[in-house]
């Protein structure tokens, strides 16, 4: 078998404090495996990593890729460009071509022929290697092309063989000897190939001690936060990109005496959750837009019945079935305004895996303190991209259960009324099995005892009691994070996974001499208007960055702040996350325009 390996522009290894590698091919090619292996290498040499996936809603076939970025600094985005591409087919090159750095390297699987001429002359370094053929002929399974590619990548990046071996071993050891041996073989095949063909390190990746950082996706962080926050009952129904939460929890929660249950549909999910919450369990459910739409009635029920439940909404491209595997932030309106009638709710939006952990605990506490449904609003990128972070800080965690009564609390009470009018609008909550706490809980309008009532005076009081809890909660809600210069006249507002791209864009804007402030909002409902005012008052211009068509957050901010002209929407709704430069361009173009127009 003739392998065609060439390295067009041999050069001195380039020091890369920050490098981005993409592996592209067909779904099922195992591109994500390479991403994971590289991640382990990078973390072993003390780098921060951030990875992202781009897959279709099908199991095998169709273009799929994974991207991993490694950096000496913490990064929360895949950045603006890809430095190295492993492409198992030409479609993968085509898909990546707009993102490739001008001097990017491509390892191309030439099993079906060398990479087409049209990609020549772009300054790209191309390595043609028949990865698939080699795997198939030498190891009898095409899938091993991944490990071969990994080996070549290792060489290109100047990673030590020992490191590659260690990483491969620790991944495949638990999968049995056969898997491990075959992969080890594939690794040597790749190394040999690289050596034979004189592939040298193009990049030099800085090494340091392995840090104590961990690697987590937003979904994993939510799941872990749930456990640590005392969550013991999770019920779900599979849906991308929320399913990971259920799957992460299932094998772990039982160790704590808790339960994960897969229900027959999302209607069962929310109502089972409601039942368990009613009985006194700490409950979370998770879904994506379509499931959330089905839970609409249930969420209102929790609101009226004053039951604590956390609903994780992992947004994806909508409407309807939309694009299940792609990123969007278009369910704000739905979680803030959806469901008939009026009831209290909270909507909280973390921006990183670290925040996912903390805000999940907060959400559980808020739900139980205020006896209402709390949405935890994520987006696909935040859910499924992994980031390096410091280990979750367990010491800071408190489990707060609000006015949940014990038997001895009840002994001190004269008359128990589940919906007793109280100064702060929150009524002591008894759960079944407590003597003296017997009461009725209902989604009908009710009197203090929980018995159906249409008395007009009672109605007014009950509505006000419930609705005021939202105001009351404001003091405890996660406040926005402020970044950037206090004296800037230009502001950015964003939430969720736009955090990373915005932070990087701020650096880019700085280098263009555009100073900006940025408020990452973490409570979407109710908007913490005072904080917003404080942030925005000195600003001439506010850019609200979000992944949707209508600029949903921008609209909410406009109606909260007034002075609508100041507020400009930067939206993206093509299913992909913002690149930092897209935000930079949008802002600088807008400002430039204004400057030119003499504004």
């Amino acid at each position, binding site marked *: 078998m003739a392998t065609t390996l060439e390295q067009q522009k041999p050069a001195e290894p380039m020091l890369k404090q920050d490098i981005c590698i993409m592996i592209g091919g067909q779904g099922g090619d195992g591109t994500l495996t390479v991403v994971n292996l590289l991640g382990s290498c990078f973390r072993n040499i003390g780098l921060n990593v951030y990875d992202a996936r781009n897959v279709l809603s099908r199991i095998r076939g169709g273009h799929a890729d994974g991207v991993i970025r490694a950096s000496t600094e913490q990064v929360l985005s895949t950045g603006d460009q890809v430095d190295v591409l492993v492409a198992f087919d030409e479609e993968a090159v085509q898909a990546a071509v707009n993102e490739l750095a001008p001097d990017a390297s491509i390892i191309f699987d030439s099993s079906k022929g060398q990479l087409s001429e049209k990609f020549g002359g772009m300054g790209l370094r191309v390595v043609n290697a028949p990865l698939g053929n080699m795997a198939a002929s030498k190891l009898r399974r095409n899938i091993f092309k991944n490990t071969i590619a990994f080996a070549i990548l290792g060489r290109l990046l100047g990673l030590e063989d020992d490191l590659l071996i260690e990483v491969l071993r620790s991944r495949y050891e638990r999968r049995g000897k056969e898997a491990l041996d075959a992969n080890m073989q594939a690794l040597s095949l790749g190394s040999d190939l690289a050596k034979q063909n004189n592939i040298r390190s193009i990049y030099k990746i800085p090494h340091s001690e392995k840090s104590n950082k*961990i*690697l987590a996706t937003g979904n*994993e962080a939510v799941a*872990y936060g749930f*456990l*640590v926050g005392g969550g*013991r*009952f999770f*019920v779900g129904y599979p849906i991308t990109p929320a399913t990971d939460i259920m799957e992460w929890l299932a094998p772990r929660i039982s*160790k*704590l*005496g*808790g*339960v994960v*249950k897969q*229900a*027959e549909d999302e*209607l*069962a*999910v929310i*109502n089972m959750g*409601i*039942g*368990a919450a*009613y*009985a*006194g*369990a*700490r*409950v979370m459910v998770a879904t994506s837009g379509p499931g959330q739409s089905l839970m609409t009635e*249930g969420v209102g*029920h929790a609101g009226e*019945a004053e039951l604590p439940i956390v609903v994780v909404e992992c947004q994806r491209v909508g409407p309807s079935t939309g694009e299940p595997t792609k990123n969007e932030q278009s369910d704000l309106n739905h979680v803030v305004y959806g469901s008939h009638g009026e009831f209290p709710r909270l909507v909280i939006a973390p921006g990183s895996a670290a925040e996912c952990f903390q805000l999940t605990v907060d959400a559980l506490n808020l739900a139980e303190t205020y006896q209402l449904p709390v949405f935890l609003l994520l987006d696909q990128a935040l859910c499924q991209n992994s980031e390096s972070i410091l280990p*979750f800080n*367990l010491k800071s*965690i*408190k*489990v707060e259960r609000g006015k949940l009564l014990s038997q001895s609390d*009840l*002994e001190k009470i004269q*008359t*128990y*009324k589940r919906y007793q009018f109280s100064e702060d609008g929150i009524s002591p909550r008894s*759960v*079944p*099995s*407590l*003597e*003296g*706490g*017997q*009461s*009725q*809980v*209902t*989604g*009908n309008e009710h009197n203090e*005892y*929980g018995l*159906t009532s249409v008395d007009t005076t009672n109605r007014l009081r009950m509505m006000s009691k419930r609705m005021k809890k939202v105001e009351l909660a404001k003091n405890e809600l996660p406040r926005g994070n402020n970044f950037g210069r206090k004296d800037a006249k230009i502001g950015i507002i964003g939430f969720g996974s736009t955090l990373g791209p915005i932070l990087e864009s701020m650096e880019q804007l700085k280098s263009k001499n555009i100073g900006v402030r940025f408020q990452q909002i973490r409570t979407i409902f109710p908007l913490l208007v005072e904080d917003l005012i404080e942030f925005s008052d000195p600003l001439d211009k506010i850019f609200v960055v979000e992944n949707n068509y209508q600029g949903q957050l921008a609209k909410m901010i406009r109606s909260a702040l007034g002075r609508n002209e100041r507020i400009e929407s930067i939206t993206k709704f093509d299913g992909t996350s913002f690149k930092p430069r897209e935000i930079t361009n949008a802002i600088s173009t807008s400002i430039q325009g204004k400057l030119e127009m003499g504004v």
Partner: protein
Amino acid sequence: MAQTTVKIYTPTTPIWCPGCGDFGVLASLKKALSDLQIKSKDTVIVGGIGCSGSIHNNLECYGIHSLHGRLLPTAVGVKLANPQLTVIAAGGDGDGYAIGAGHFLHTLKKNPSIIYIVMQNGTYGLTKGQPSPTAQVGYEGNVDLPFDAILTALSIPSTTFIARGFSANQAQLTDLMKKAISHSNSNEGMGFLEVLSPCVTYNDTYKEWREQVYDLSTEKDYNPHNRLLAFTRVSEITNQGKIPTGLVYSGRVKSLEENTLSKEKGPLALQDISLESNLPKYEQILNDFR
């Protein structure tokens, strides 16, 4: 109410029309709970939405009024959170067999140790008499053959207790309720009890039903532990224009709690979830992120 002096709500008078079959259901339920000495503090009634779905207000216990059609998932949630409770879901046939049909199948399939009482009247009482899934052909324009919940329950391989009563036969009904409650409270799974409970206002079937009911226990060789024979016999009787009542089937399949819940830790609703008590386990799990 023995232990404490807390004053709680006074159960309300039923909202039902005079003569409604649901009065009989309430009476039997009260008697069964009292005969079995189930404590009010440990009883949770999960109501549906409908005339029937207000029964929880009429006795002293814990009650949760679910959404229309969602009483079963709600009840399952309660039971999983605290399996020591006697959890009784009680609602209408519209609630349970129309909008709730999917949960009906799936809850039977899960076999949680809850009791499910369906007040079957062939109509949607509370919305004024539209046909429910069990409505006779011709009733209010209904063209579909009625749904037979007993047969369908028999078709689910994991059902463990299936019975039908008649609100006008209190002795039988109370007996069936006790059996259903005992079944579930022995952690043996779901006690499903359909009660013929006529809607005197919109679909008064007292007369027909009195003539049609056929007590299976009067059949010497009826074997309520053989699913196939039960299906066959119930079908035959039904095809003859009769309505079989009594214990139709009981059998043994592991219950949902047996399958799902950890035995050591006790009801998860009552566990100590403070950070301190769980820290070592949390730290251990944190390693999965490394």
